[in-house]
């Protein structure tokens, strides 16, 4: 018995070491760093108590980034999930060109977000970008969607939806194909129309997938900011500053590492709470096979 326990620990040790060194250690150090000042040159870090947290509460850019991020999440999550479901239903049916459509829908997923951002920069280019060229055909004037504070956040949200919907589609498509055809036929035999089949049979059977995709979508809404870096740099006037991007700026452009650690900690706690809440709230509505 004791020997077995020892063997077990010995076998776990290599993985445990890696986890401690590269995951748990940094987490702990990050949390610790939030209670110290940022070291400058010869000035070492000093214990600062909750000063960093007080600074955070008083920081208007933090609050703007949080507001931006909530709006951004509120836009991208439902839009990308809804689009993913529609696309999956479309390419799940029997139709010509199904293979081509599946590939087309999935392509944005395999592109790096930075590349996607560059494609969209071209779309948004004032005057001669794709969008303005199309507007030109209808005699409409030039726009600067990325450059204006009231449209920039929507413009970057559209990029995220375009990028993510194809990825989520794959999960919905796999789930749709796992639904036995005989269930659909049984429903048809009972007189259900297409909408009723969707509402009463397909949608309930997709709930585990919806939960899984929703959790991923929430995390991504706070985590994926490569296109912000490439397209707007958080501007104009912080209109597209998202929490994670602001954190990157604080940490690696302003080199205020203690404050960056504080932002990190808050972001992780918020995300964790949201995810747990999602599971607890949605789990009761989910049907698992």
């Amino acid at each position, binding site marked *: 018995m004791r020997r077995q326990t020892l063997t077990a620990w010995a076998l776990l040790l290599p993985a445990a070491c890696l986890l401690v060194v590269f995951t748990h250690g940094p987490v702990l150090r990050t949390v610790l760093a939030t209670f110290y000042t940022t070291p400058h040159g010869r000035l070492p870090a000093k214990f600062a108590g909750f000063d960093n947290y007080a600074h955070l509460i008083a920081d208007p850019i933090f609050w703007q980034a949080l507001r931006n991020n909530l709006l951004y999440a509120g836009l991208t999550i439902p839009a990308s999930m809804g689009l993913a479901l529609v696309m999956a239903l479309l390419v799940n049916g029997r139709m010509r060109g199904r293979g081509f459509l599946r590939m087309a829908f999935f392509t944005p997923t395999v592109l790096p977000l930075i590349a996607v951002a560059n494609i969209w920069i071209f779309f948004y280019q004032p005057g001669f970008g794709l969008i303005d060229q199309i507007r030109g055909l209808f005699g409409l004037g030039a726009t600067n969607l990325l450059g204006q504070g009231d449209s920039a956040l929507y413009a970057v949200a559209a990029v995220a939806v375009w990028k993510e919907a194809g990825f989520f589609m794959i999960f919905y498509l796999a789930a749709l194909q796992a639904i*036995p055809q*005989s*269930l659909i*036929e*049984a*429903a*048809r*035999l*009972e*007189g*259900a129309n297409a909408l*009723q089949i969707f509402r*009463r*049979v397909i949608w*309930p*059977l997709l709930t585990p997938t919806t939960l899984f995709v929703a959790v991923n979508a929430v995390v991504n809404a706070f985590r994926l900011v490569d296109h912000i870096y490439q397209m707007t740099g958080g501007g104009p006037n912080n209109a597209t500053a998202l929490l994670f991007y602001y954190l990157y700026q604080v940490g690696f452009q302003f080199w205020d590492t203690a404050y960056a650690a504080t932002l990190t900690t808050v972001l992780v706690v918020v995300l964790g709470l949201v995810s747990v809440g999602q599971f607890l709230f949605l789990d009761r509505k989910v*049907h698992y*096979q």
Partner: protein
Amino acid sequence: MIAQTDIGRQSGSGPASPGAGLRLSGLARAIAGRRILDGIDVTFEAGALSVILGPSGCGKSTLLRLIAGLDAPDGGTIHLGARDLAPLPPAARDIAMVFQSYALFPHLTMAENILFGLSLRRVARVDQARRLARVVEMLGLGGLEARKPAQLSGGQQQRVALARALISERPICLMDEPLSNLDAKLRAEMRSEIRALQQRLGLTMIYVTHDQVEAMTMADKIVLMNEGRIEQEGAPEAIYAAPASRFAARFIGMPPMNLIPGAALGLTGHDAGRLIGLRAEDGRIDPQGLAAPIVAHEFHGADLFVTIRLAETPVMLRLPARTGLPADGILRLGWDAGALHRFDPVTGRRLTEP
């Protein structure tokens, strides 16, 4: 198991007018250039239990799906009474169906599964409750209303599927190998239960199976299929007594009918070149009979299954076990002339002239 409640005819919209038989003519279906069904002509009489019997892959399910309207034929017609079913969607055909896999909705409770169709059709709640109570009692499912399919045994799931078909009170019920997922004991039980329900409710039932025992025990009429065609149709007794082809002879009856070249039986004249059918129970020990070595024997209680060899053909006989076997290992085989079936060795069709 069946509770003696009265459902059916007197219940307002109960199973419909007897007399509306289902008539298929020239029905054909090809998938990807392959003929799955080829010129199916058959009538399923109202109020009768017809069994479509055939080996796996012969097109039974395809035929059932055409009748249900889940699939469209490439040729031929389906009439219910005088009404052509072709333009009607599945739900408008007055046909209920039990799927081989049961097709219960995994996210709904037993009661919700059974009531699925009624709630779609917005049947009043009180009527739903009344009809649910009736089928639940009829199938002995009481107390399981709140369970999901995953919490039911195979036999219970089978009954729920049956209940969902019965509650619609449609006059025609299709069943695709409904018992194939059950163990042997439950299968025998459900067999007689389904038969009793069908008779009591006066349902027109079309029952698909590959199990000839199921067909023989349940059917008013067997429709024997092979490779997308109807091989023979008729009452179980009639098919057993006079199989129309080699295929029918081998497929119906356990053990299958022996098919022996006429010459090997010592027959002369026309019969020498024919394929002669002899049922296992029609052979007997006869001191003046044809001598043949015993190859094997199996004890089955009342019966002894004895395999002998006639020329190169193994022949299985079913003898009373009490008689015992000849000590020298040579069996002398006799038969009544009237017990022989004659088949054309090339076409396999039954020959009627002696």
